[in-house]
């Protein structure tokens, strides 16, 4: 397993704002890696450092085996980038922008280009200033997806796309995964990340706080359990991983770390289960937990 991206201990500040605060990130070659985090967490900043557009203050960054600051142009021929805010030249048509960007990366596949234009339902003859936000985004996406590159770096690529187009985008990324291309996908849309990504990293205030596969992270979530027992439970409170325990006679309500589920179920069964409702864990919870902490910290 080689790594397409390795970042360790990255710091970056803009004047007084400490945007990245010792960030570690690893993206394995061939995987689709989700990059999640609340607004202002530092996703775009990380990506800009990875592209050599910004220079990190401290820490090591390696991209496709090279140094993105020193070897920017050579490395860029092997990747395609879709920025979060796509601005086009007012007088160039979408088709011209797609071709220009593709050629500057070292070529694009004309068949794939036409196919993508059709699937994204994009008119390439319009001038830059007449595109809507979503359509500007599509121009950048088509240019990136039609390029023959090893790595795709996508910064919130679906912002502004309608649900139909989001679906097209998902299919495209699925195809890229099958071609073993590496994708770094920054996003706010949890379902998108859940559906597409092999592994995800959650970033908060300039640090990666969780990283792993979907099931790794599911482990970090809690299952909510409601049970009616034959007798009052006794050992439940002392088990690790049990939270907000609420016992009323024979009724029990608690949140359980998914990793500790087994022990808790044994304990419950020992008291005789009459009825049981278990709410499956969602990533949303984990995610919200980090997001909420963040807004609490911010306020």
């Amino acid at each position, binding site marked *: 397993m080689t790594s397409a991206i390795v970042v360790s201990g990255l710091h970056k500040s803009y004047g007084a704002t400490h945007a990245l605060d010792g960030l570690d990130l690893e993206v394995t070659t061939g995987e689709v890696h989700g990059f999640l985090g609340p607004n202002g967490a530092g996703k775009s900043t990380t990506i*800009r450092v990875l*592209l*050599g*557009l*910004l*220079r990190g203050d401290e820490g090591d960054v390696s991209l496709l085996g090279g140094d993105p600051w020193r070897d*920017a*142009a*050579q490395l*860029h*021929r092997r*990747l395609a*980038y879709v*920025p979060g*805010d*796509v*601005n*086009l*030249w*007012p*007088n*160039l*048509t979408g*088709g*011209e*922008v*797609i*071709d*220009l*960007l593709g*050629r*500057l*990366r*070292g070529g694009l596949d004309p068949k794939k280009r036409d196919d993508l234009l059709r699937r994204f339902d994009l*008119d*390439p*003859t*319009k*001038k830059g*200033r*007449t595109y809507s936000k979503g359509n500007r985004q599509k121009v*950048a996406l088509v240019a990136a997806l039609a390029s023959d590159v090893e790595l795709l*770096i996508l910064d919130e690529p679906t912002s502004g796309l309608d649900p139909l187009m989001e679906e097209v985008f998902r299919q495209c990324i699925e195809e890229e995964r099958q071609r073993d291309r590496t994708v770094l996908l920054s996003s706010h849309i949890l379902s998108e990340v859940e559906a597409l990504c092999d592994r995800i990293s959650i970033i908060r205030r300039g640090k990666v706080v969780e990283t792993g596969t979907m099931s790794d992270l599911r482990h970090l979530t809690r299952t909510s359990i409601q049970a009616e027992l034959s007798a009052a439970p006794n050992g439940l409170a002392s088990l690790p991983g049990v939270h907000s325990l609420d016992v009323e006679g024979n009724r029990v309500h608690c949140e359980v770390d998914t990793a500790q589920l087994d022990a808790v179920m044994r304990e419950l069964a020992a008291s005789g289960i009459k009825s049981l409702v278990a709410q499956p864990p969602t990533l949303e919870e984990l995610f919200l937990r980090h997001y909420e902490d963040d807004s609490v910290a911010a306020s």
Partner: protein
Amino acid sequence: MSDFVGTGTLVRLALRRDRVLIPTWIAVFVVMAAGSAQATMDLYTDVASRVEAARTTNASPALVSLYGRIFDETSLGELSLFKLTAFGAALVGLLASILVVRHTRAEEESGRLELLSAGVLGRYAALTAALLVSTGTVVVLGLLTALALIGLGLPAAGSFAFGLIWITAGLSFAGVGALVAQLTEGARTANGFTAIVLGVSYVLRAIGDSSSDGKSEWVSWLSPIGWSQQIRAFAGDRYVVVLLPLAFLALLVTGALALIRRRDVGAGLVRPRPGPAVGAPSLRSPLALAWRLHRGSLYGWGFAFLLLGLLVGNIASNVDGFVTSDSAREMVQKLGGVQAITDAFLSTEMGMVGLLASAYGIQAALRLRSEETALRAEPLLATGVTRTRWLASHVLMALLGTGALIMIAGLGSGLSSGASLGNVGHQVPRMLAAAAVQLPAIWLVTALVVALFGLAPKLVTASWALYGLFLLIGQFGALFNLPQAVINLSPYGHTPRLPGGTFTLTPVLALTAIAAALLAAGLTTFRRRDIG
């Protein structure tokens, strides 16, 4: 009335946004007028010296076409301010129209206006607010100038008339700004249209004012700047002429309002047409892209420079006609004869053309920054394009563009002066050389933008301020008795005065070397800094 809802809010918003810009500009103009008047009063203490100075000016086609005629040769006020009459009026006009476009089309282009229109805003509110801000600014500017002049001891009636010259020019071009802002979808293009109207107005009055036999004097009346001049401050104070620019403003605003009724928010009257679905095979390098981005404005400037060159050459060949009176003939002899005067005129005008070409160079080099802040540099720099190549593409457009412009003007002036003097073969190479020697100073100023872009990108628009400073040093340095060290700061002062003067290599090489050093500094610092 609902069409105007929200005007007050927008006026306050605009005044807030421009709370530094507007007072600064007003102060610059007032100080410029007062300083010029004070310096002249100190210099010419008696009537005889004033009359002589005025006669010399009126005998020089270069000065008359550049600044306009002095109508009353005994008037202290007119002599004090003649350099700021037409020239200042043009600058006030520029300010007024930029203000209108800035608060209408530029807002619309950025989408901010849409955000506001979704609230409660009448459809005429933006334009009305912009016009109120713009005309209000020039009225205050003109009145304060008049008060400053009265304070210095100039006649009150004349001082107000002078204020009105600037105010009326501002009003005319506020109207122009209002109209062009409706025509195009881009603020840049709208300002380009204004610049063309301004340039044509200036040239028309130059033709009329410098008409030697009075036959083409009427041409000045085709120009809004000409109308303002015809108020003739300190030389009759013809207030009634004010009606002309007022009517012009009313006409243009009516037109603009009619256009607003017929178009959508964000759209222009000129609808963009669809373009090619694929990029031409040549569109494969940053340079090709830069050419696409710069060529439209370069063609426009090129055409204007050709006309300007032809005009300058044509006026030069009329120098003879200026020499009508005996006293003028005597003056001409003192100044070295007709040939010397023609050459002096041509070299002065070439210097002015060089200043204009620098404005193109600055604007073209500023593209670097606008591309960066509009986030259009980022996707390019995330491809195989190095920072050096990207920077070089725009810098090359600026350097070669200014080169092309100045040579076109040189060619035009050589052709037209040669044609009427009957020595094209002699005159064309002389004028091309006169054009070429302007380049090092132009490039230095352009390179200054690049250096700032690398070193202090947030301050890059200060290049306009530096340019303005060089311009003022050149125009008023001697008059204000500035120390030589300050006068030497302006690169334009070091350009050999061709045709006619002697060519010295040292300043040309020095200017070029400084320009190269600035470019190198800009490039190395840009390669090391963050993008964005």
